[in-house]
């Protein structure tokens, strides 16, 4: 073999950040278990990720040692809990390069984060004195895309129903890319908000957002990025992305369920009316009316998921310790490997980009005419856990003319050996059904 030297001064092969996958796997207790008599092969991290011991320990320790309500006691435990909760907020702010800690609002998940923004629009639309950027009515438009998760479709449909605004969307190309050709006509002076998925949970597509951001700025609309699938898998810099809102969900990034994040530009959050009312979100309350706390508290009514937030802080510590560039590179290599390997399976059709560029490690496919339920069931009998169904993105299935898809998705602990197990399993599926 001849080797070609990369000229000095250029990025070298070894410049790529790497980590020891076997060592990372040892942090995840569940990866040791067996399923149906086989070693677990977990290829469903886009659905939810596993949790390392470092996160599980923090979760347990919080309840065992520091349990108290936050922001409402002077006692020692209350102070410890509050410090841990606010400390997690600071960690998350740093993880996404938020200019201010107060721009990080804890929510239950991505779905709730999107709904908070949608309902803020709704509430503002009922109040003539509200910030005009959040007021919606007939003639105004909300723009999404055909590749959204249901949680970035339904809240906007409901908002449009309530306000009389019109919902519009970017189509998807045959290659599974966002079709931006109609950008000028789609995003106009009528547009109030564009809410777009950063990485599709079904096609794996990573959307390049800069052209859209530029257009959104030109027409004076707002931009929300659904980063549920990107924040767990690649470095995220909210300033660099120049978005107005970014949402993501803890359970897909090594954190527990029940905790998510709404990041918003400080000035915008401050202009937003509250959505849920209750304890902790007020400034003062009289029997007739109330005034409200500044963000983020304004959007965190009631006792929050404290231990979950603290554990999410541990999760971003864990991820940052490995390095998000390294995680991203690991998954890029896996994706390239998987795309090549899946191409060898007869009758397999990939939905979405078939090159490992502008896409992440989430690959949906059809195996001949075999229904995904059947594919998933046979794979499960071999210990291989994939997701089957419409992946909460039914319009994408409709777009590609199928009722359901089979999806394999990777994370920092996934190995090429697991992709081999998938390919071998698909052979088994074909034997049963063909």
């Amino acid at each position: 073999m001849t080797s070609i030297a990369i000229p000095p001064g250029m990025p070298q092969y070894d410049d790529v950040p790497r980590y020891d996958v076997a060592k990372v796997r040892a942090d995840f207790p569940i990866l040791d278990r067996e399923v149906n008599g086989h070693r677990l092969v977990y290829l469903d991290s886009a659905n939810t990720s596993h949790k390392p011991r470092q996160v599980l320990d923090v979760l347990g320790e919080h309840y065992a040692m520091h349990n108290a309500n936050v922001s409402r006691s002077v006692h020692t435990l209350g102070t410890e809990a509050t410090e841990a909760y606010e400390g997690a907020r600071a960690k998350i702010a740093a993880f996404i390069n938020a200019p201010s800690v107060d721009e990080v609002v804890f929510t239950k998940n991505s779905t709730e984060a999107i709904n908070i923004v949608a309902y803020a629009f709704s509430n503002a639309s009922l109040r003539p004195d509200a910030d005009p950027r959040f007021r919606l009515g007939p003639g105004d438009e909300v723009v999404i895309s055909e590749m959204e998760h249901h949680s970035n479709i339904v809240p906007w449909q409901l908002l449009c129903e309530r306000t009389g605004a019109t919902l519009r969307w970017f189509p998807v190309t045959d290659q599974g890319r966002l079709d931006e050709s109609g950008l000028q006509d789609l995003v106009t002076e009528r547009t109030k908000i564009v809410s777009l998925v950063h990485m599709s949970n079904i096609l794996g597509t990573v959307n390049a957002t800069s052209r859209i951001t530029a257009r959104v700025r030109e027409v004076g609309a707002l931009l929300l990025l659904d980063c549920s699938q990107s924040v767990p898998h690649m470095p995220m810099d909210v300033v660099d992305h120049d978005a107005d809102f970014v949402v993501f969900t803890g359970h897909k990034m090594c954190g527990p369920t029940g905790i998510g994040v709404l990041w918003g530009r400080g000035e915008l959050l401050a202009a937003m009316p509250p959505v849920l009312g209750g304890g902790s979100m007020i400034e003062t309350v009289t029997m007739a009316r109330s005034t409200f706390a500044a963000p983020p508290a304004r959007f965190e009514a009631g006792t929050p998921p404290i231990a979950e937030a603290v554990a999410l802080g541990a999760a971003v510590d864990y991820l940052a310790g490995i390095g998000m560039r390294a995680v991203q590179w690991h998954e890029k290599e896996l994706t390239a490997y998987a795309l090549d390997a899946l191409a060898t399976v007869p009758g397999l059709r990939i939905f979405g980009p078939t090159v490992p560029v502008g896409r992440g490690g989430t690959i949906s496919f059809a195996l001949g005419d075999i229904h995904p339920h059947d594919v998933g069931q046979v794979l499960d009998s071999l210990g291989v856990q994939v997701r089957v169904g419409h992946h909460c993105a039914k319009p994408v299935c409709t777009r590609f003319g199928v009722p359901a898809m089979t999806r394999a998705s990777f994370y920092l602990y996934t190995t090429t050996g697991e992709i081999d197990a998938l390919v071998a399993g698909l052979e088994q599926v074909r034997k049963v059904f063909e």
Partner: protein
Amino acid sequence: MQLESLYQEIILDHYKHPHGRGLRDPDATGARVAEAHHVNPTCGDEVTVRVATDGEVLHDVSYDGMGCSISQASASVLHELLVGRGAGDAFRVHEAFVELMSGRGQVTPDEDVLGDGVAFAGVARYPARVKCALLPWMAFKDAAARAGVGVSPTEVEA
């Protein structure tokens, strides 16, 4: 878990060579015809079942749909078991099938009543797939009710 208990030969056979597939218009004049379309929202399986009856006998039970092997084979078995039966008799079969599927693998099926339907006994042990097997049977129940033939009350737990 034994995959063979789920994918019995009989089930794969009905899936690969479905019996009576396709929605049909009734031959018998004066038959009442009604259909029902059911979907499984979690996986997108769909089936339409059409019942043609004079109120006494089910002259035809035809169907069309798309879905996994379990739901499609189940529709094929439904057709085979119920066509030409008296309505009362048909609902006894229906009841037996629903009972089998709700039994979490603890119910021993009666082959005299269920015919090829006994092959679904293994499916009852896979909670995620019980809905697939029941989909055509639930659509049948609705279609029959719309065609005016009595329905025995069925409770589905799965």
